[in-house]
Every structure is written in structure tokens, then in C-alpha cells.
């Protein structure tokens, strides 16, 4: 299990290959990559991500630990960037490996749902003249409901 919080860019393909290597007994590998996209209104020039050093690592490690407790995972990877990101740049990535594809998919979705709403990151969209904090979506909070029963 590997958790990285960093300002630098990462190569999602290279990370996927490094993660998959040596997993000959886990037939299913799922990855999610989040990429900076333009605002719906357009005209964004960059995204700025603030985080809470210390709590971030702790929160992600707890979420990843919970995923391992719930599913039979061979391995899991979480990378999340902070600082200033350009449009089209990768923001974050999650990868999971398991013998069973359903477990790999569910664990990746679980990690994403919790990272979205429980890891201390805040996104700001930077326009040419203005900047605005991204507001949390009700649907992101609602997505956690899927995992609230202890039994999976």
C-alpha cells in the first residue's frame, strides 16, 4: 500500500505499470485518474489545491486501511497533488489490485468517494481575473451512503 501527497506532477501510465508489476496473483487492476478540467463556464487558467499537511496523510492512510479491511486487495495506491495545477494536468490517482474484479472496482470507488469528502483538500478555480473556491457537492456527500453499512 502506497500513499503519496505531492506538489509535483506524476505520470499516470508509468504509475499504473509500476503498481501492476509483480502482481502476478492479482488478475484485476483498476485505476482512477482525476484530471484538471475547465470550469463549466469556461475561462479557467489553473487550479490551486490547498491541503492540511499532517492530517492529509493521516486521513488518506485511514481510508486506505479501511479499504483493505473491507476488500481482499493485493495492493492499493493513492497519489494526490496540491499547489497550482494547469488544465489537463493529473490531480490525483487511485489504483487497486485484487484477484476479483468486483473487489478492485468497489475498493477504487470507495477510495475515491472518501478522498473527495473526507481528505482535507480544497480546490480553487483560478480565472484570468477572478478565483473561486469549488463548492462541495451534495452528491459527493451522498455517495458515502453507499458504504455506510459495515458489511460488504
Amino acid at each position, binding site marked *: 500500500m502506497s500513499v503519496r501527497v505531492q506538489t509535483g506532477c506524476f505520470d499516470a501510465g508509468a504509475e499504473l505499470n509500476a503498481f501492476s508489476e509483480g502482481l502476478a496473483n492479482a488478475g484485476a487492476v483498476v485505476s482512477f485518474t*482525476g484530471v484538471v478540467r475547465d470550469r463549466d463556464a469556461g475561462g479557467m487558467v489553473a487550479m490551486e*489545491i*490547498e*491541503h*492540511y499537511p*499532517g*492530517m492529509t496523510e*493521516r*486521513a488518506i492512510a485511514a481510508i486506505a486501511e479501511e479499504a483493505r479491511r473491507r476488500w481482499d486487495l493485493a495492493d492499493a495506491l493513492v497519489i*494526490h497533488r496540491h499547489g497550482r495545477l494547469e488544465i489537463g494536468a493529473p*490531480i*490525483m490517482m487511485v489504483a487497486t489490485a485484487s484477484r476479483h474484479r468486483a473487489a478492485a472496482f468497489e475498493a477504487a470507488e470507495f477510495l*475515491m468517494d472518501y*478522498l*473527495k*469528502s*473526507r*481528505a*482535507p*483538500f*480544497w*480546490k*480553487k478555480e483560478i480565472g484570468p481575473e477572478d478565483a473561486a*473556491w*469549488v*463548492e*462541495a457537492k451534495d452528491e*459527493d*456527500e451522498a455517495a458515502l451512503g453507499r458504504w455506510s453499512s459495515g458489511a460488504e
Partner: protein
Amino acid sequence: MIDCLYFAWVRERIGVPRERVETSAATVAELVEELRAREPRYAAAFEDLSALRVAIDQELADFAAPLEGAREVAFFPPMTGG
């Protein structure tokens, strides 16, 4: 003495990312009342508690949580990572 940390627009409204606060508040809610009474910028930051989240010593908590033994209290809007 408690370290208060502020993130995102909470930090912007208060104007500093962190500060040491002399307090005898028993709960987070009491601490918020003390801060609100200080200056308008705190009143602006803590105007709507339903729009805020709080962490005590880097664990999510709620406003009714006791502060006994806490070293660090952080205030921020709902997270938007991922």
C-alpha cells in the same frame, strides 16, 4: 493555549493560516463564540457553522466536541479533493 488552523476561504476571511489562542473554552462551539466576539473578520468566517467543518488534532470532530487535551483545532469548509 490551542493552535487554531484555518483553511481555504476560512483562512482568507480571517487573514492568517494559524495562530495560538489563549482560551478556556470547554468545547469547539465555545471557542467559536470567543473568536466570533473578537473581530468582524472572525464573525464573517464563522457566520454559518453549517458551512464549516472542524478537526481536533487532525481528526474530524463536531462543534459539540470537548477541547480538553486538544493541541490543534482546524476550521475549514467541506473538503473538495479527489
